[in-house]
């Protein structure tokens, strides 16, 4: 796959924020109970690798308006090392039977909620 070859050629710069993909579907997020459980599962697992400073799981709006970052999970750790450890441990694990992908995200972009 060409896209994969292109992407792996550029080394990733580790940051304190992880962006996790393929974890949640819009249907999961719309259900308040599911959403709460997902938050809990992510929080408790990520705490094994460091201090979770903040956690964002954008939810789709009920009016059908597109919300940036829907379907992604963002986790801010205290240090780059913690984020790196979590990335190593979580990438390739399953969440709800889907394989989780993880990338680092720029802290400034995260703080400004530029989720796309």
């Amino acid at each position, binding site marked *: 796959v060409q896209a994969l070859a292109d992407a*792996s050629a550029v080394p990733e710069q580790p940051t304190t924020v992880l962006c996790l993909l393929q974890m949640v579907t819009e249907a999961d997020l719309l259900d308040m109970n599911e959403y709460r459980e997902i938050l809990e599962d992510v929080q408790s697992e990520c705490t094994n690798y460091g201090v979770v400073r903040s956690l964002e799981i954008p939810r789709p709006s009920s009016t059908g308006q597109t919300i940036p970052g829907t379907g992604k999970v963002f986790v801010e750790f205290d240090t780059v090392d913690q984020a790196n450890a979590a990335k190593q441990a979580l990438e390739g694990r399953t969440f709800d039977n889907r394989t989780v992908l993880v990338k680092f995200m720029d802290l400034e972009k995260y703080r400004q909620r530029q989720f796309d």
Partner: protein
Amino acid sequence: DAEPAKKRRSRWGSSSSKVALPSGMANASDKMTPEQMEALTIKLRLQDIQRKINNIQLAIPSDPRDRSPSPPPQYDSAGKRTNTRELRTRTALMNTRMALLQRVMVLNPNFKPPPDYKPPKLEK
């Protein structure tokens, strides 16, 4: 003396079923459709499962603390145990494999399943 509330099962899969992904997978997803990306990760997972089916020890955590409790033993009429850890692990892998094959066939209608794939029986 009420039983303590049963702990809800986490959505996270066990770390023993973690699959090695090539670096840059998450970045590559920007250039693929979600369906393509899911099909690609399932393909990697299927390869990993095949490797474990061929060598079942790879799928059994070496530290006993990482294994879930075993059910009571069952034996066939010849007195041979039918639910050894290896057999249970293999069945679980085969079931996961079938579920992943089913999913990949939805994602990619051109996908040719392996000859031993059996479509799920539809219940009336």
